[in-house]
């Protein structure tokens, strides 16, 4: 096996450890803080009614037995049945994944499309007006709370101007507001990073040489500096995608009634649907690991000097 294959195997193994650790933590925490039976039954249900349901759900078993059971079914890719929807969790996840992918895909694409030109302009005129405007915008973008931003966008574009739908999935126009909401804070952070990495590169001796040689600006940027600035930028994009999947989508999907995995997670928490929550966490953790692995391979591709 060559070096690269070893690398992939090693990272996959590390990833598996990460996924299992995260799942185990969620498993223990959810069982410590809540009792699904108490939530599922009416407030004045009797102890006998609760006991019956507890047994039916297998919650009367000791926690370690439940965990072993849970691991065993995970390896069989069986995520159990949702307490809340009374159907297999895998079906729910399969239904919800496309919406989340759409949202994160569109949101991150938009973030990159916004951040690259903004960051570049700022880097070319450091300390001058374009830079100040870009930095101010980025700062606003990365510091607004997503929740508030989403509601404001809905209020302006749906309730007042009536040019976009307020919520829900459906057509491409339904995707616009949630994707913009998800994109703006990420675009703010990305633009700042593109700016600072480009400034570093633009001050490097090779750029001065290139300028002295009379190379046109687009060539200096496109062929040299962007490629060199790509590694930190890609790291940041990977990080933004991860944050979106594992956190921001929960907020954005809730505000926009967007039926993705994040909304399912919050619904599972509200209903103490432990098995569904575990399944979602497992899937999200898996995605994060895969994204990181993919990024590592891309680095290697961009810059062969990076040792794996």
């Amino acid at each position: 096996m060559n070096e690269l294959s070893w690398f992939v195997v090693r990272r996959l193994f590390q990833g598996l450890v990460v996924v299992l650790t995260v799942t185990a933590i969620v498993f223990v925490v959810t069982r410590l803080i809540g009792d699904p039976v108490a939530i599922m039954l009416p407030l004045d249900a009797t102890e006998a009614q609760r006991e019956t349901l507890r047994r039916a759900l297998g919650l009367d078993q000791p926690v370690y037995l439940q965990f072993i059971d849970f691991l065993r079914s995970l390896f069989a890719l069986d995520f159990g049945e949702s307490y809340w929807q009374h159907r297999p969790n895998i079906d729910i996840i399969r239904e919800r994944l496309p919406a989340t992918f759409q949202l994160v895909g569109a949101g991150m694409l938009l973030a990159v499309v916004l951040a690259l030109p903004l960051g570049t302009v700022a880097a070319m005129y450091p300390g001058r007006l374009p830079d100040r405007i870009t930095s101010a915008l980025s700062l606003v973008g990365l510091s607004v709370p997503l929740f508030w931003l989403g509601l404001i966008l809905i209020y302006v574009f749906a309730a007042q101007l009536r040019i976009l739908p307020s919520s829900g999935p459906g057509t491409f126009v339904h995707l616009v507001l949630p994707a913009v909401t998800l994109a703006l804070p990420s675009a703010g952070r990305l633009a700042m990073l593109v700016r600072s990495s480009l400034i570093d590169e633009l001050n490097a001796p090779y750029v001065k040489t290139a300028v002295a040689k009379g190379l046109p600006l687009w060539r200096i940027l496109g062929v040299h500096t962007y490629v060199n600035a790509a590694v930190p930028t890609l790291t940041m994009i990977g990080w933004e995608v991860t944050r979106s999947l594992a956190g921001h989508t929960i907020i954005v999907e809730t505000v926009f009634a967007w039926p993705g995995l994040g909304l399912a997670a919050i619904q599972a928490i509200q209903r103490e649907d432990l098995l569904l929550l575990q399944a979602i966490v497992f899937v999200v953790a898996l995605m994060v690991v895969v994204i990181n692995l993919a990024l590592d391979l891309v680095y290697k591709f961009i810059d062969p000097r990076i040792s794996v």
Partner: protein
Amino acid sequence: MNAFTGGVRAIVVVGLLAMAPALAQAQSVTMAISSEPSTLDPQKTMDGGERRVNDNVFEALLSRNADSELAPGLAIELPKRIDDTTWQFKLRQGVKFHNGELFNADAVVHSVTRIFSPEYKSTVLGDLTGIKGAEKVDDHTVNIKTTRLDTLLPARMYWLKIVPMKGSEDPSFASKPVGTGPYRVTEWVRGNYVQLERNPDYWGPKPQIEKARYRFVSEGGTALAGLIAGEFDFVDNLQAEFARQAPQVARRQGLEHSFSAISTENPATKDKRVRQALNYAVDKEALAESLFMGFAKPARGQMIGDKSFGFNDALKPWPYDPAKARALLKEAGAEGSTIEYVVPASRWPKSKEMGEAIAGYWQAVGLKTDLKVLEFSQFLVRLRDRKVRPDVIFSSHNNALMEAERTVQVFYQSIDKATSSSIVDAKADQLVAAAGNEPDNARRKAIYNELMQRGYDEAWFLFLLNTDDVYGLSKRMTWKPRLDNKVFLSEMTVK
């Protein structure tokens, strides 16, 4: 073109023109509800989203009229009690389920058997406790048997939706339900909407609205924006803060009563005067105004409303009188003592804010409050703990059967007999038991009244608010909310 096809075309064109006004009148509405149904099987689970949809798709043997009184539904008249444990229902004839199955005694027996079957694991049996089973007498007569004398059986049957024998055994029933109601489910796109269409073969009057789409919007601000934008005609559970911005608001005094149970056993609250002082100290009017924007009223010294059987009309809201509270505390020698107050952070609207305000009121009359705002599941642990009761614990009660029985069984009995009580009182236990065995309505009402009076005099509770049900409506919608919080499309009209 020959004369024949020309004639056909003419007929088609004329026909289409004739249909045009009818098409224009086809009314459809979009309803924003706060959660997606977890299932559309009406017998499985306690689920607000499911209920919003299925109340239009399924029917029960009995209904309630505009005054919230029990009325015929799939039964043609109110049932008769033919012996202590048997109620007889006469069924409506010629009613069909959406799949063509006939509604008859077999369907009723099946519905009752199904919901109680242990393998089915229904979690909605709470209000149906005491039903033993159903027996077919003939095709259109059914006897419902109860385990003991049960005067509430008719009210319980309002909550038991009738499902078809064959249709309900189909695995797709939970996603494509089949009922007898004025609307049928045509499509459920998970995560997006449930689509209903008027049932053309409905046995009752034809409702105006032809199509309804239920969307699931959990965030109140988003639902309000959709209402303002004209995307929604109805928003469930509109937050009081948003009422002023909504195009139209529908409100009605509901069945929800917030209160707090005060322990009669804990040292801090053992003295009746302290419990009374806790009531005198709190300005209920102010809580209703500032926290609920006026969409609530101080409760009238009990946890059931004036339309419920057993309501004690003599009781008035507990007056706000901080001076009296201070005097009572002084008399009891309880000045400066510490009261533990357990409040849930969620589940009931504004519970946390109410808890904080009340702690402030108690502070103002010279008490210290050990306020514990807990996550709901942690709160439940305290609520269920039979051994260590908090001095005071927040709760809220919604008696959907509209008779005091459940209220007194849960809250007005001693700790060892009830699921959520904080009192010990032999007299109360005796009264609750007597009410359960009393078939005579007047005498039973007298017992409930006595219990309510006793709960008030002994200050077993801090009586708080009776909150309104609030809904947002589009400008074109005409609808009056119901006391029981059911939302029937058949009662709505749009312009």
